């Protein structure tokens, strides 16, 4: 198994807040890694550290055998790293096709406009937005905007795709569709890290799961291992010993 991304001892502080502490993992090519944890655990911060938005104070990010820790975000994009944002960021005044062309122009392959349009059409078909190609991005509904966000990232032809809560705000049939799309992307050979709160979906689609709590990596393993892990259960459900104390007082 080739390691595509290696995160080594990554630490990030914001003033007095320790946002990430010594996060370390290897991501093999072609896998889906689910990144979970309670609110404020540091999941999006880890994405920002990996793709150069906020470089870490300590530790290293190795991507395709190259140290990319201090590179700029656009350099990460050129190297084949693309991401989506939790709050969708469409260019509302451009059409759906034009939005996706932006991804192709500034991604790994630096396409010319003509090629970028072809790639955009191909990707829009893949994410099932083809019928919306000439519409303004601002006129899409939430589920469609999520797909657009994904299409723009895919048009960059990434090796690694970082998905930040692509299922949030979707109804159950939209979630099922989106999960299928994520699987299809993986089957094309793209490696994926997905931050997700919709647990059934992320447990179902991920090869491995990494759990953050207060910036610390408290567990890593298969979905089955994670769902039985005591530290994880405590992080999500609270300390059973404290609850017992409360019961004993009665």
């Amino acid at each position, binding site marked *: 198994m080739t390691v595509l991304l290696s995160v080594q001892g990554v630490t990030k502080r914001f003033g007095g807040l320790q946002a990430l502490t010594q996060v370390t993992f290897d991501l093999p090519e072609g896998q889906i890694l689910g990144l979970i944890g*309670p*609110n404020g655990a540091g999941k999006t911060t880890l994405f920002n550290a990996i793709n150069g938005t906020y470089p870490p104070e300590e530790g290293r990010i190795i991507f395709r055998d190259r140290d990319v820790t201090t590179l700029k975000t656009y350099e990460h994009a050129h190297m084949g790293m693309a991401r989506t944002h939790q709050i969708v960021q469409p260019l509302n005044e451009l059409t759906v096709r034009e939005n996706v062309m932006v991804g192709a122009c500034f991604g790994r392959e630096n396409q010319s406009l003509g090629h970028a349009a072809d790639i955009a059409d191909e990707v829009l078909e893949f994410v099932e937005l083809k019928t919306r190609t000439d519409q303004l991005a601002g006129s899409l*509904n*939430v589920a469609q905007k999520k797909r657009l966000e994904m299409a723009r990232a895919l048009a960059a032809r990434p090796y690694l795709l970082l998905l930040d809560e692509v299922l*949030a*705000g979707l*109804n*159950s049939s939209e979630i099922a569709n989106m999960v299928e799309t994520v699987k299809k992307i993986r089957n094309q050979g793209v490696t994926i890290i997905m931050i997700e*709160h*919709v*647990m*059934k*979906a*992320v*447990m*179902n689609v991920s090869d491995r799961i990494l759990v953050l709590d207060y910036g610390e990596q408290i567990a890593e393993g298969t*979905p*089955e291992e*994670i*769902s039985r892990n005591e530290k*994880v*259960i405590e992080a*999500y*459900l*609270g*300390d*059973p010993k*404290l*609850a*017992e*104390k*409360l*019961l004993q*007082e009665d």
Partner: protein
Amino acid sequence: MAILEINDIASGYGEVQILWASSLNLEKGKLTCLVGGNGVGKTTLLRTVMGLIRPWRGTISFEGQDVSRAPAYTKAEMGLVLVPEGRQLFTDMTVFENLEMGATNKRATPKFRKNLERVYEMFPRLQERQAQKAGTLSGGEQQMLAVARGIMADPTVLMIDELSLGLAPVLVLALFDSLKALRELGITILLVEQNVQMALAISDYGYVLAEGKIELEGPARELIKNEHVREAYLGL
């Protein structure tokens, strides 16, 4: 009969739907908890019940009256009171002034003295600090003040959004003990809480919300042993 009946409620923000057909019934004098993971819609449910957001569908009845469309201030005057998430205190006002702010409506004003005695008995620390600015209190004391301000509104039903978030274990225990005292006063409580173990340990009845829908409900002591609760949170 239930004092608060929430039937088939759907709501959300803008075009994003958060709640899908959720129903809850609060039994008079009982402590009911609503638990569930991040972003499943717990706060949205409380805000909808309170009238801070309009329900898209469904009905809410309080003491037998339909209040589905009633604004928050009307409900507060009827005795349905919310302790909001993140406390939302008036930090530049004193502890006493914050308590006064809880008791401004027609319902609460005549009972000001009685309710003030109640909250000082329940939280002696607040009496010691009554002249201090709320913003200078510790996190635990601020949470006590938020609950106390809610009690000053003379609630029949008190809804509390996140009692223990970010507090040290000793304080968590103290705050949970105050819930028991409130129940003894006959106040019906709906508790939203991220600490599921604690919430189920203290409650009479529990609801588990997952992805905007009620996934499980039952007597709290049964839910605490239920494998499905873990599943609802962790997906497996």
